[in-house]
């Protein structure tokens, strides 16, 4: 019921394994196998058996400690405990690599593409708005140029009329 940490579970499993292994290799069994020697030297047999058991347990426990040490297993298992704890609300089977890297990479890259797209959208909208203003300014400018051209044209025509008057005057003045 109580959720043991993976490290505790591992130690418990190894202890249980050792317990059962030693239980299997009982003193009874040992003396059965080394019957004659046991009959000759019962105390010695007991000592040898005890040494056998303690040595086996020590070696196996040392091996486990070494493996824990080597692969930094305790920290790794504790971090796995945390990850599992954090993900326990999520009941459905979680995603797993599909075996097609291109496919799996889509979700990895997608958030950054979405950012890129949003940034581009903002840039485009901003530029469109600016261009809208520029376009209005250009239209206003065109109207203003047109007005100025009309003004110049009117003045020009006035001067041309003047020129005609002038020519007429000359013709009048020059008349014989």
């Amino acid at each position, binding site marked *: 019921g109580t959720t043991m940490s993976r490290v505790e579970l591992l130690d418990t499993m190894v202890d249980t394994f050792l317990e059962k292994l030693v239980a299997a290799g009982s003193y009874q069994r040992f003396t059965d196998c080394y019957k004659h020697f046991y009959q000759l030297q019962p105390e010695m047999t007991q000592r040898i058996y005890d040494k056998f058991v303690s040595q086996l347990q020590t070696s196996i426990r040392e091996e486990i400690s070494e493996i824990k040490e080597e692969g930094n297993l305790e920290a790794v298992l504790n971090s796995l405990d945390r990850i599992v704890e954090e993900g326990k609300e999520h009941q459905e089977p979680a995603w797993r*690599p599909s075996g097609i*890297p291109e496919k*799996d*990479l889509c979700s*990895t*890259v997608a958030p*950054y*593409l979405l*950012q*890129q797209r949003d*940034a*581009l959208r903002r840039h485009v909208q901003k530029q469109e708005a600016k261009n809208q203003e520029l376009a209005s300014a250009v239209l206003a400018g065109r109207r203003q140029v047109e007005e100025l051209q009309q003004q110049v044209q009117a003045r020009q025509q006035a001067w041309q009329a003047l020129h005609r008057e002038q020519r007429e005057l000359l013709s009048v003045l020059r008349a014989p």
Partner: protein
Amino acid sequence: FDEIIVDIATKRKWYPRKILECVIRTLKAQLE
């Protein structure tokens, strides 16, 4: 077989991060 599994698993763990670094650099450059 074991080495292949570990090799693939290692790539699955680290390559997305590396690729992402390149992708982010590329996107930044494009934006600039």
